[in-house]
């Protein structure tokens, strides 16, 4: 048995016991009359609401309609407390005796979803609770039922604040206004709900709205008329009819909730809506991230071209300019001073060698030819050989992979090894590139100083974008004193 079901069974037992207690209170009451009728009404409505509510709660745990029905049932038993001869129990009954009507309004206006959604719904329910909760409590502090309500045999009010006889009447007027407004609003909401509903929904709503609407209409008439006509008989009859219908209500609720699939469909639809909203938010975040990353990739493209231009200008081009001048000078000296000319030519040869080496290095930085010719493993070995810090290639895929994947992996390793050589003060770097679970996993770790800030350099940021463009993930861990580990995961089926 699940935790919820155990709790519901316990509540059921409690409702049964409260019913028995109510029976005892009513049957021994000195002032309740007629006892038989009161007992029948209390038990019929209290138990029917509590038990059908618990059943509905069990069947539709996500829908608070069941819980509200159960609460209505329990609150209904306050009626029985006010039959007590004990002044404290009696006072408690007086305070709580109208609460069940407010819960019922809550139940009716939110049926069948059980959720308060609109402002009018919230206002209606709040007004109902205000009138039957705080105002009822305030009223109870100032009323002496034995003298003011003409209740013969009622116990005295133990919490009575004396010397303010008129206050109870004033509060009562506010309560009445609040109660009548709340009921009128509730009826209006029910009617509007009915009018907006589809035929299928109406089949579900009909029993509930008809019974609930009728009960409240009668209650409304009783509330208003009782203020105008002081006929006890009329009030009693109207009250009995309202309560009799009231007792039928839970079955109408149950019928509506269970016979239809709307309760369930609504839950599913709400869950779907929530999920949908969440997905939309995630999607928007993704789009924003993509937009930013695309922007950075374009920026990085321009930055890369500027770098290429500058590197060419500062490097090879300067060497070639100097070479031109040296050769021109050598040409001028060729006739007059052949020895000086030969010396200049030797110098030019040396300069040309440097320029060629520089261009080769430069071209490799743009795209390593070994990568396209012989694959990732060979290219990684090349990187390891050229690195000033010793590099161990712990794993590298022997097979060829798609060019964008090989290229991204290569540049992650190249950039990381450059960083190791520049900043890490490391004795050894370890490179591990493996295919696993449809990804190419790239890891470069070193035993250096750590403490690298992945957000600081444009190099790592550029790599992250490059990996993101392939739908991969990129992570840098660099605790001070614990070396740096760069990890990239690139989808690669």
């Amino acid at each position, binding site marked *: 048995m699940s935790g919820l079901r155990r709790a519901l069974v316990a509540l059921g037992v409690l409702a049964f016991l409260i019913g028995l207690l109510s029976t005892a209170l009513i049957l021994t009451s000195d002032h309740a009359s007629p006892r038989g009728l009161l007992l029948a009404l209390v038990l019929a409505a209290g138990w029917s609401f509590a038990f059908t509510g618990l059943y509905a709660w069990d069947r539709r745990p996500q829908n608070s309609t069941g819980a509200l029905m159960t609460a209505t049932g329990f609150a209904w038993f306050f009626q029985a407390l006010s039959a007590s001869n004990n002044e404290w129990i009696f006072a408690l009954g007086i305070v709580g005796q109208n609460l069940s009507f407010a819960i019922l309004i809550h139940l009716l206006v939110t049926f069948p979803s059980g959720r308060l959604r609109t402002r009018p719904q919230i206002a209606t329910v709040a007004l109902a609770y205000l009138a039957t909760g705080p105002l009822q409590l305030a009223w109870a502090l100032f009323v002496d039922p034995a003298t003011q309500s003409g209740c013969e045999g009622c116990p005295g009010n133990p919490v009575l604040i004396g010397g303010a006889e008129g206050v109870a009447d004033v509060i009562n007027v506010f309560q009445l206004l609040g109660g009548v407004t709340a009921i009128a609003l509730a009826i209006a909401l029910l009617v509007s709900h009915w009018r907006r509903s589809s035929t299928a929904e109406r089949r579900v709503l009909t029993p509930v709205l008809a019974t609930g609407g009728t009960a409240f209409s009668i209650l409304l008439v009783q509330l208003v008329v009782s203020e105008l006509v002081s006929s006890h008989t009329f009030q009693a009859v109207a009250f009995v009819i309202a309560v009799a219908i009231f007792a039928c209500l839970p079955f109408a609720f149950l019928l509506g909730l269970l016979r239809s699939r709307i309760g369930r469909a609504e839950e599913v639809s709400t869950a779907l809506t929530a999920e949908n909203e969440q997905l939309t938010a995630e999607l928007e975040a993704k789009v924003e991230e993509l937009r930013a990353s695309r922007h950075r990739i374009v920026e990085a493209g321009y930055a890369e071209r500027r770098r290429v231009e500058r590197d060419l200008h500062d490097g090879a*081009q*300067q*060497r070639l*300019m*100097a070479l031109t*001048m040296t050769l021109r000078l050598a040409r*001028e000296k060729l006739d007059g001073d052949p020895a000086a000319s030969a010396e200049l030519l030797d110098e030019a040869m040396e300069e040309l060698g440097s320029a060629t080496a520089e261009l080769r290095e430069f071209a490799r930085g743009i795209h390593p030819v070994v990568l396209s010719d012989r694959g990732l493993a060979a290219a990684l070995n090349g990187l390891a050989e050229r690195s000033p810090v010793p590099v161990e290639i712990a794993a590298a895929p022997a097979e060829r992979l798609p060019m964008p994947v090989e290229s991204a992996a290569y540049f992650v390793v190249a950039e990381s090894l450059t960083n190791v050589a520049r900043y890490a003060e490391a004795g050894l770097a370890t490179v591990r590139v493996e295919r696993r679970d449809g990804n190419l996993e790239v890891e470069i770790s070193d035993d250096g100083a750590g403490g690298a800030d992945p957000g600081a350099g444009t190099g790592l940021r550029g790599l992250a974008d490059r990996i993101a463009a392939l739908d991969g993930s990129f992570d840098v861990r660099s605790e001070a004193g614990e070396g740096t580990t760069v990890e990239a995961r690139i989808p690669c089926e």
Partner: protein
Amino acid sequence: MPETVLIVDDHPGFRASARRMLEAGGYAVVGEAGDGEEAIAAAGALAPDLVLLDVQLPGADGFEVAARLRALGRAPEVVLTSSRDRADFGDAIAESPARGFIAKAELCAPALAELFG
């Protein structure tokens, strides 16, 4: 016809080649500078007849440096040079107070002399 020259370029290799070329052509190279600030200071101190001024310098570029040199008490002649082509700078060369422009690939004593012919 200028006789003393200040060479301004951020590449030492180029400065060395230019010095050799200019000296072979009969000029007296009185100083070298690696950027604009150094160039202004050296021009003020050495008062050369001519400043051979690279356009792409770190910090202030050659055009800006040329304008500031023009403001010196005894303003030297300025010849701009670059590994780039004249066309790469649009009309900036024509608008600068410099005497002229010689691409580095064409830089030699006779080309310099031609500007002052």
